[in-house]
Every structure is written in structure tokens, then in C-alpha cells.
């Protein structure tokens, strides 16, 4: 699919709530169809993010990473429970985080902490087919689109935010979109993405 420029469209203005607002994001492809599993996250403008990141987990089930894409806040520990009856050797050579969990089964004793934001590609040294992604973001407000291509980011303090999207197979990085989250209520945002075919990790 051809690369296209993503268009930012801010369409609806919703009355903001006092304490926390919500952002409804719709991600569509060139044909207007919703795209699932697109990572959407909001970075507050000028604001500092505080709080302890939630831990993440990515299972290995039936020689697959489940879910394939996991989003975590930077600094979050991620565990890699092996739910197969075979062993795995999970590794990453990604610049955001390089690690390896040598042949193990069950849940490794120590979760892996991802400090640097960025994409981490996961593989298994024994099973070339296994391909997973951990996307590390520097914000607690993130989500993944559902099957219809929609995701709602909730609990955002009112304020201005930059909305970002990411997908491992995207051909173009859509530009961030600025939204103003009201105190109460929701703001809507939409992205157009161009996602390539899912490459096979190995033959």
C-alpha cells in the first residue's frame, strides 16, 4: 500500500469535564476502514508525567507472543510468561532495549524493565517464527485500537496533548496531532494510517 500523508482532522468539540477528560481516537486506513492494534498515546504538552508505571506482560502461547504488541510506560517491568510446554529464548537486539531471556520455561524470575521509550522487537532464538513487539512510551496514557479501529484514552487531566500513533508495520509515521482534553468529557481525534503487510518473521 502506498504511503500517504496522514491528515489530521479535528472534528468535534465536546464540552470538557473538570477533573478528567477523555480522548476518542479513530484510526482509519486509506479506504476508511478501521485498523486494529495501532498504538495510540498522548504526550501532555509541557506537563511532566508522574506516577509509577504499570507492569506489563507478554505471554508465549503456542510459539507466539500474545499479544503480539504490548505498550508499556517507560520504566515498566514486563514479564514474559512461557505458557508453552517448550522452552523459549526470547531476545531483542533493538536499540531501545537489548536483552535476552535464555532458554526458560514458566515465568522468568525477573521481569525485564524497559526504561527507554521506543520500539523493541522481540524474537525467540529457537523459534524464528515468533515475532513480538514492546512499544515503550513516555506517558501513562496509551492504548491500542480495537477491531473497529477505535480506542479511547481515559482519565486524562484537562490540558493540551500531543496524540501519536505507531504500528510496527506502518510504512509512514503519521504526524502527531495536538488535542485539548477538557476537564470533563471527551475529545475526538482521528488518524489515517498506512500499514504494510505483516511480514513473516521467518520461513
Amino acid at each position, binding site marked *: 500500500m502506498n504511503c500517504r500523508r496522514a491528515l489530521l482532522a479535528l472534528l468535534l468539540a465536546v464540552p470538557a469535564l473538570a477533573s478528567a477528560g477523555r480522548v476518542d481516537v479513530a484510526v482509519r486506513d486509506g479506504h476508511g476502514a478501521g485498523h486494529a492494534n495501532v498504538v495510540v498515546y498522548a504526550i501532555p504538552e509541557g506537563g511532566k508525567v508522574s506516577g509509577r508505571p504499570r507492569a506489563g506482560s507478554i505471554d508465549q502461547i503456542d510459539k507466539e507472543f500474545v499479544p503480539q504488541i504490548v505498550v508499556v510506560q517507560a520504566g515498566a517491568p514486563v514479564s514474559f510468561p512461557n505458557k508453552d510446554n517448550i522452552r523459549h529464548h526470547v*531476545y*531483542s*537486539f*533493538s536499540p531501545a532495549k*537489548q536483552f535476552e531471556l535464555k532458554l526458560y520455561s514458566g515465568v522468568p524470575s525477573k521481569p525485564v524493565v524497559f526504561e527507554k521509550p521506543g520500539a523493541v*522487537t*522481540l*524474537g*525467540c*532464538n529457537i523459534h*524464528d*517464527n*515468533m*515475532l513480538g513487539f514492546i512499544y515503550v512510551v513516555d506517558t501513562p496514557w496509551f492504548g491500542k485500537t480495537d477491531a473497529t479501529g477505535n480506542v479511547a484514552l481515559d482519565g486524562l487531566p484537562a490540558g493540551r496533548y500531543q496524540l501519536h500513533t505507531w504500528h510496527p508495520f506502518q510504512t509512514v509515521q503519521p504526524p502527531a496531532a495536538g488535542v485539548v482534553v477538557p476537564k470533563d468529557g471527551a475529545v475526538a481525534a482521528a488518524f489515517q494510517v498506512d500499514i504494510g503487510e505483516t*511480514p*513473516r*518473521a*521467518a*520461513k
Partner: protein
Amino acid sequence: MKSLRQRIVVFFTVLLVVVLAVAFSWISRSQENIATARLIAELEVGERVCTQLLAQRSAQLAQAAQVLASDYGFREAVATHDVATITSVLQNHGARINASVVLLFSTEGEVIATTLSHATARAIPVLSALTSGNGRGSAVVPIDGKPYQIVALPVRAPLPIAWVVMGFELGDALAGELQRVTNLQVSFVAQAADRSQLYGSTLPDRLRQPLLTRVGDAVAGSSVSQRVDLLGEAFESRIVPLWMARDERVVALLQLSVAEGLAPFVRLRNFLLGLAVVSVLVTVAGSIMLAGGITRPINRLAELARQIRDGNYVEHAKVETADEIGELALSFNHMLDGIAARESEILRLAYNDTITGLPNRARFKAALREAIAASGRTGQQGAVALLDLDRFKHVNDTLGHRIGDQVLAAVGERLCAAFSRGETVARLGGDEFAIVVPDMAGRTLEQVAACAARALGDPIELAGQSIDMNASVGATTFARADVEPLALLREADVAMYVAKQRRVAFVPYDAAFEQGRQVQLSLLGELRRAIENHELQLHYQPKLHLRDGSVRQAEALVRWTHHERGLVPPIEFIPFAEQTGYIRNVTRWVIEEAVRQASAWRAEGVEIELAVNVSARDLADMELVRHTERALARHRMPAHLICVEVTESGFMDDPQRALDVLNALHALGVGLAIDDFGTGYSSLAYLKKLPVQALKIDRAFVKNMVGDEDDRMIVRSTIDLGHDMGLAVVAEGVEDAASIESLRALGCDFVQGYFVSKPLPADQFLAWQRAGRPISPRLREPDREAGDARTASADA
């Protein structure tokens, strides 16, 4: 053209050669096509096998590369861009699998690490294509002009983060490997615009350079399959393109030696060729034998036919087979026997006299020729004797031809018995025998003749009769080789005639006989022509009847007016004609003419009785009677108007026969007068036997009777004798009136002579007779009359 045998051999040989040649060329062409098709098919299979092998090799290479690409440490090094480590790993793994070239490319196509220079690495074509996908790629590409089989594999983490490329040279080793599997000659050629480079080949070194010079055309050619000639060795070639760019390409050249491909066919062809040669030889030999089987007997028959031609009838054809040839040989033998039998019969007839069994004239001549030749060689004297039986005709006429033949046979036998010492006795014909004495051995001709005479001395006893045979013999001798047999025979003949004339038993040849003979001989020929050319004519001398003065009789006398010499006196040819026997022809002509003339006169109302002279030879021939009879019948003449005058000696030779003839004539009604009566030795007894009507007193007595008393007395006695016997008397040679008166007084019936009239031609005679018999005024020519008269009645 040539012999049957050659034609048979040539036909079968040519037939076989043509058939073999056609078959051979057809088989050769088919073989060639089949072989070429087989080569091409083999090359096609070879191409598939090679392609498959290259693919397998590519897979193997890929697997090897995969090992590298999957190595965790390597991946880590790649992921961390640890170029030094990467390079060392590349070298290590490359060496491990004998890769010629190992490279690492980023997914963006940047060279990360390589065993080559970066520039060379970046220049590798199709790399981007190979490394664009997800999986792996392989290709044959030229690197620095050298062909390599390369594989590209992604380094995954687990998504591709780089590409490992490994290259393996296409060289002799791979070519050899392919050859082992495909059995083809394999060469790898990289071809740029301006040059071709051979990188690996199974061809022997000597063929590599020629291949490069030829491969340009071959590779450039559109056809994938073609024939390439390398140093005279043909290769069926197939081009398998491995890589192609605009002006550069890499091909694998698969080749099969045509000679090797054709080898089985060549063996088959050589076998066929050998078979052809053998069969041609066998055919030639066989047809020669077969043809020989046909022609050899034919040639033998031809040879036999030549022998038959040459008169050899002894050898017969061998009948070896029961086929047509054998039948032919059998027929040949029958023919040969037939020819031999007929020829011996013909020879017998040709050279033997059938009556006596003696050699005939032809064989006699041959014997004479041999004897002459022998005489020429040895110098001995030989002789030829001719023997003619006297009065044999009489035997024949009186006793019949059967007895006559027996007499001849008996004579032959006796002569054979008498001459049995190398002499040849032959019967030449008629009653003529001949004897050749090759060697006289001191004998004289007289002795030889006497010997012959002795042989005939005793009478021959036949059919209860005793027959006396005498012979006249003429003989001559020879002692040289250059004598003509015919001349000898003629000499003997002449001598024999002389003997006949002289009435002696034997006369040896004398050259003196030849004098005058030539004239006579030519005269004989002319006399023959005289009859044919009507040069003879008759003159008529009247006989005056003294009692009433009438002329009712005349003597016909022959006159010859030669076309060149004029009048030929009878004395010059009549005796000669009598000698040679030709007088018989003359006499017949005279009788014929006399009868015709008498008949003519009779038709004019004048009946004249004509007398003709007949010689002794005529009287030996019964044919005279038949001739006379025919002449009379032809002219419807009564016989009494014809009379024959015969001298006494005329019938003394062979009185019995002469008597027969005269009696026969008499029986016809023809009259008979005795001519020249008084000069011969005839006895009155004979005269009494003869059917005679008249006597003619010889002129010798009449001429002198007036003056000579003796003659006068003879005349008177003769007249009286004639009258006593009831005969008319004619006086010849009357030359004066006194004689007439004297004769009339003596009672003579007729007179004839110049005083009455000379012989006159027919028209003058008639005129004279009608004019009333004027006495010839020309009494003064006594000589001529005397000669004439004598001639007219001459009988030697």
C-alpha cells in the same frame, strides 16, 4: 557388348550395389538424423539436469548461508553493528563452506561488510532484487566479470536486519561435477560486449581457446541448440543462459561430441559397409560361378561348333546336366552325328563313282595333283594314262544299261587289280577310265599300257554272255612339280584320240600331235557357232535319171560360209568334225535342213528325193534314228523322200550297231545308198545284209572309164552287180557327155556331176529344175568338182 557371362555378372553386381547404396545412404541419413535428435534430446535432458543441479546447489549454499545468518552471535554482531566481528565471522563461515565471496548488506542495500572491496560489492548486479524480498534469493551473476552463483539470505532479529550474500565461483570443479552427472561437456562462459571469458570447463585445454573464438557466434545465435566445430571435432551444443544483462551475460554451454554420439551408429554403419562389401563380393563370385555354369557349357558348345565347322566330328559334347543346357548339348550331338553322316555320304557321292565304286574325276584330279607334288619332291617320274573302251556304246545299246554298268564295274575291278601299287584308278565318266602312276619305277609307258590291256584281255562273262572289251589308251609322263594336272589330262586325252584314230591299242603322247590341233580346236568352236549362227547351208546337186532325163533326186551337200573367212571348204572341217564326233551335230542339222527344204519344195509341187551323207560316228548312234523320225514328223514329210548315203567303211567300225541303225532308218521308210562303192573293203555278204536301195559308183572309176578299159569294166560290173541285187546305180563325177553316153549304154540309172550341174543353192536348184535341166556350161572346173565330190562323201 560383352560376353553373356560379363553381362550377367555386371547386372547382378550393379543391381546389388545400387540397392545397397540406396539403403546405405538412407540408413546413414536416418542415423544421422536420429543421432542428432538423440544428441539434442540428451542435451535437453542435460540442461534440465544442470538447471536442477544448480538449483540444488543453490539450496545447499542457502542452507550453509542460513547457518551463518541464524547464528545468534552473528545476529547480535550485526544488530550492534560490530563491523569487525561481522567481517571476521563472514570470513570464518565463508571459509567453512568454501564460499568465494561473502558479503553483508543492510536492508537498505548498504554494504556492511564484505570479503571484496566495497566498490565491487556494490557493483554486483541484481543484488537489490535478491535482497528486496523477505525470503532468500539466488542467481548467477558476474562479479568483476567472473560468474558466481550467489545466494542472499536475510539476517533476522527476527525481522530482517541485514542480508548475507554468499557467492561460489562457477569453475572447473562445478563443471566437472555437472559432467559426472550429465555426461556432457560443461563450460561456463561470461560474455561481455567485447570479450568472452571461459571460467570453467570440462573440455580439454586444447579445445578451450577454439571454444572461446567460436562461442561468440554460438552464444549470439538465436537457437539454443547448434553444432559447433572445435578443431575439426563437432559438438552438438546447447546454451543455457544463467544470467543476462543488456550487454553482458553468463551462460552454461552444454556440449556433446557428435563423434561420440554417432559412435554406435558409426559402428552400425561400418558393420553395414562390411556387410555390403562382403555381399557384393559374394554376389560377384556367385554370379561369376552361376554365369560360368551357363556360359561354360555354351562356350564348350561354341568350341564344338567351330570344330564341326573345321570338319572334326569325332568329339561330342558332354551332357552333364538335365537342364536346358544339357538338352542343347544333346541336340548338338544329334546334329553333329547327322552332319557327319550326311557329309560322309556327300563325300562318297562327290569323290566316288557310283557305278564302279572307283574315285571319280574330282578325286582323280586330287590324286593326280598329289602325285605331281610328290614327283616334284622326289624327282621320280609319274604317268597318267587315259583309257577309253572301244565300242562300249554298242554294249550299252544292245545289252542295256544295266549290263553296261556291270561291264564298267568289271572293267574297274580288273584295272584296280592290275594297278594296286600306289596307282589310282578312276572312272572319269562314260566309258573313260584314268590311271595315275605316281612312280614309274623304271617302267615304260608301253608297259603300263600293256598292263591295262592285259587286264581287259579275257572276255567279261556277264549274264551268260561273253563280252570282249578293248580299249584305246593314251598316256603321258610327268616329272616336275609345276605341271598342270589338267594339261596332263589333256595330253593323255590327245594321245588317246590319236590311238582311236589310228585304231591301235596305245599311243604315248607326242608334242607333234599338237600341230594343227590348235587350228582344229578353234575350228571346232567356230563350227559350233556356225550352226548357231546359221553359217551352214545346203547346196543340192541333182541326180539325172538317164532313162527319162528327169531330175527327181539330189544330194544335199553342206557349205560353210564363215563370217570372216568366207567359204570354208568341206575338206577343212568335215574330217575334223568326224574325228571329234561333232559330225553328229552337223549331220542332225543337215537332216533337219534337208527335210525342211524337201518339204518346202513339196509344198510348191516339186517332189525331190534328197540324199544326205551319214558318217560312221552317226551310225553308232541310235539317236540319229529318233532325230530323223522327229524331223520327218515335224515337216510332215514321207520318209521315202529322204535317203542316207553311207560309205562302206562307215559301218565297218561297228557293223552290228551300224546295221541296227540302218535297219531302224529303213523301218522308218528312209532310203539307203552305198557311197563310194568300190573303194572300200566291204564284202558282198554285208551288202546283202544291208537294207540298201542304191549303189553310188566312186568318181575315180567314172572319171576315166571312157579312156580306161579297166575302169570301164569295173563300172559295168558294178552296174550289173547292182542291178542283179535289185539296186539302183548312180554314177558320180560325170564330167562330159561321152561319159553320160557310155553310162547310158551300160544301163546306169542315174548320173551326178558337174556335167549335169554343180551343187546349187536351194532357189537356184529349183529354178534349174524347172528350166528343164540345162547342162551346166561350166565344165571347165574339174578340180573344184573333184574336191567337192570327194568332200561331200568323205568318210575317213
